[in-house]
C-alpha cells in the first residue's frame, strides 16, 4: 500500500508529461516519456551512456577519495590539537565560503580540460564536510576515553588509532556520505560548465543538438545514478554501524 502511494505521483506525472509533450510536439525542449525511454535504450545500446557514466563516476570517486582523506586528516589534526584549531579558525572561515565552482577557472588555467580538472574541484568540494564534521567528532570524544588512553600511557599516534578513530568512525561516515553526494553533483556540474566529458557533457550536447528525448534520458539517468549511489551508502551505513549510525546522524 505504501509503495503504491509512493508510485502514484510519479506515475501521474509521467502520464501528464506524455499527454502534454504530445500536444506540444514537435518541440525542441520537451519530449514525451515514451520517446525518452527509447532514446535511453539507444544510448545504452551504442555504449555512449556507459562511457559517460564511467568517466563521471571515475572523476567523482577519485576526487572524493582525495578530498575526503585530506579533510579527514586535517579534521583529526585540528580536533586533537586545540592550539592549532583556534589559530586555523579564521583562515578556514575565510576560505570555506568560496563556492566550489569558483575554483573551476583556476584549475582550468593550471590543468586544462580532462580528468584532473574535475578531480581537483571535486576534491576541493569534498574536503570541507569531512574537515568540519571530523573535527567536531574528535572534539566530542568522551573525555573519559581520553583519560583511559592517558592511564595506559598511549602515545598520541596510538591514541589516535586505538581510541579516537573507532570513537569517531560513525560520525565520520555520515560526513563521508554527505561528501559522496556532493562529489557526484560537483562532477556533473563541472562537466556541464566546462569539461567536455562524462554525463554532464552528454546532457549539454544533447540539448544543443535539439534532442530533448536524449537530453531528458540523460537527466533521468543522472538522477537514477545519484539515487542508487546514495541508497548504497545508506545501506552500507546501516550494515556497518547499525544503531550507532542512526543515533549519530540524528545528533
Amino acid at each position, binding site marked *: 500500500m505504501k509503495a503504491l502511494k509512493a508510485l502514484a505521483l510519479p506515475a501521474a506525472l509521467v502520464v501528464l508529461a506524455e499527454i502534454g509533450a504530445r500536444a506540444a510536439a514537435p518541440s525542441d525542449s520537451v519530449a514525451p516519456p515514451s520517446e525518452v525511454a527509447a532514446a535511453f535504450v539507444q544510448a545504452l545500446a551504442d555504449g555512449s551512456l556507459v562511457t559517460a557514466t564511467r568517466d563521471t563516476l571515475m572523476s567523482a570517486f577519485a576526487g572524493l577519495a582525495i578530498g575526503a582523506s585530506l579533510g579527514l586528516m586535517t579534521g583529526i589534526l585540528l580536533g586533537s590539537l586545540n592550539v592549532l584549531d583556534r589559530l586555523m579558525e579564521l583562515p578556514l572561515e575565510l576560505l570555506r565560503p568560496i563556492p566550489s*565552482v569558483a575554483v573551476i577557472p*583556476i584549475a582550468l588555467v593550471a590543468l586544462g580540460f580532462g580528468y584532473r580538472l574535475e578531480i581537483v574541484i571535486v576534491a576541493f568540494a569534498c574536503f570541507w564536510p569531512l574537515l568540519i564534521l571530523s573535527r567536531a567528532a574528535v572534539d566530542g570524544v568522551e573525555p573519559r576515553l581520553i583519560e583511559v588512553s592517558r592511564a595506559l600511557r598511549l602515545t598520541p599516534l596510538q591514541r589516535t588509532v586505538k581510541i579516537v578513530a573507532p570513537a569517531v568512525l560513525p560520525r565520520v561516515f555520515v560526513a563521508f556520505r554527505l561528501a559522496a553526494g556532493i562529489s557526484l553533483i560537483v562532477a556533473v556540474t563541472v562537466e556541464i560548465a*566546462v569539461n567536455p566529458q562524462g*554525463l554532464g557533457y552528454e546532457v549539454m550536447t544533447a540539448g544543443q543538438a535539439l534532442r530533448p528525448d536524449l537530453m531528458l534520458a540523460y537527466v533521468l539517468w543522472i538522477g537514477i545514478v545519484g539515487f542508487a549511489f546514495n541508497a548504497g551508502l545508506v545501506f552500507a551505513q546501516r550494515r556497518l554501524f547499525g544503531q550507532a549510525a542512526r543515533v549519530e546522524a540524528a545528533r
Partner: protein
Amino acid sequence: MKALAWRFGGLAVVAVMIALWGEIAALKLVSPVFLPAPARAWTALWQGFAHADLAAKLFGTIRHMIGGWLVASFFGVALGALVGSSKAAREYVAPTLEFLRPLPASAVIPVAIAMFGLTPQMAVGVIGFGSIWPALLASVHGFAAVEPRLLEVERALGLSRWQGIAKISLPSATPDILSGLRLGLTVSLILAVVCEMIAGLDGLGQWVLLAARAYKSADIFAGVILLGAIGFVANASLRLIEARALRWRGRRTG
C-alpha cells in the same frame, strides 16, 4: 579578552599565509600564469572596480543569487508547509521528493536552456529549482515534527487550519526552515555562477571564465575573492537573522 587574543592569532596566521603565497609567487615556484602574486590580485581587484565593470558583475551575481533564492524559498516553504502538515500528502509526495533530491541541479541547466534560451529567466528557473530542495525538505521536516501536544493545544483552542499553521506549526518549524534557507542560499550562489559561466550572463561566473580563457590569473583571483566574500557575507547575515529570530529558543533550552 582571551577570545580577542585568539582572534589576533588567527589574523597572524592569515598574514603568514598571504606572505607565504607572495613568497611562492615571487620565487616562481608556481608559474605566474596560474598563481599571481597577492599584490597583483589586489591590484586587479581595484582596477576591475575602477576601470572595468567588475562592480556590475558583482551586482549581477548577487541579483541572480537573491532572485532565484527568494523564488525557491517562497515556494519551498509554502509547499513544505502543505506537505509537512498533512500525513496523507507526506505519504504520496515524500518518496518522489527523496528521489529528486540527489539530482544535481546543474543537470537541469540544459533543459532550462532549451526551454528559456540563454536568458536571465533561465538562471532564475535553474537557481529556483536547485535551491528549493533545502528549503522544501527542511520545512516538510519542520512541519511534520511539531510536538504532538502542541497540536492537541491547537485542537483544544479550536483554531482553524490556517490559524494553526500560523500560530503553532510555523513558529515550531522556524529553526528547521531557517537552516534550510541558509543552505539554499549557498546552493543558489553556486548555481548563479554556473549559469553565468554557461549562458554568458552578466556576473562573476562569466568574469572568471573569460579571465581564465585569457590566462589573466590576477583577474581570476579577483573574481574568486569576491565570490568568497559574497558567500561569507550571505552566510554570516543569515546566521545573524537565525540567532535573532530564535532568541526565544535559546532562552528556553538554556
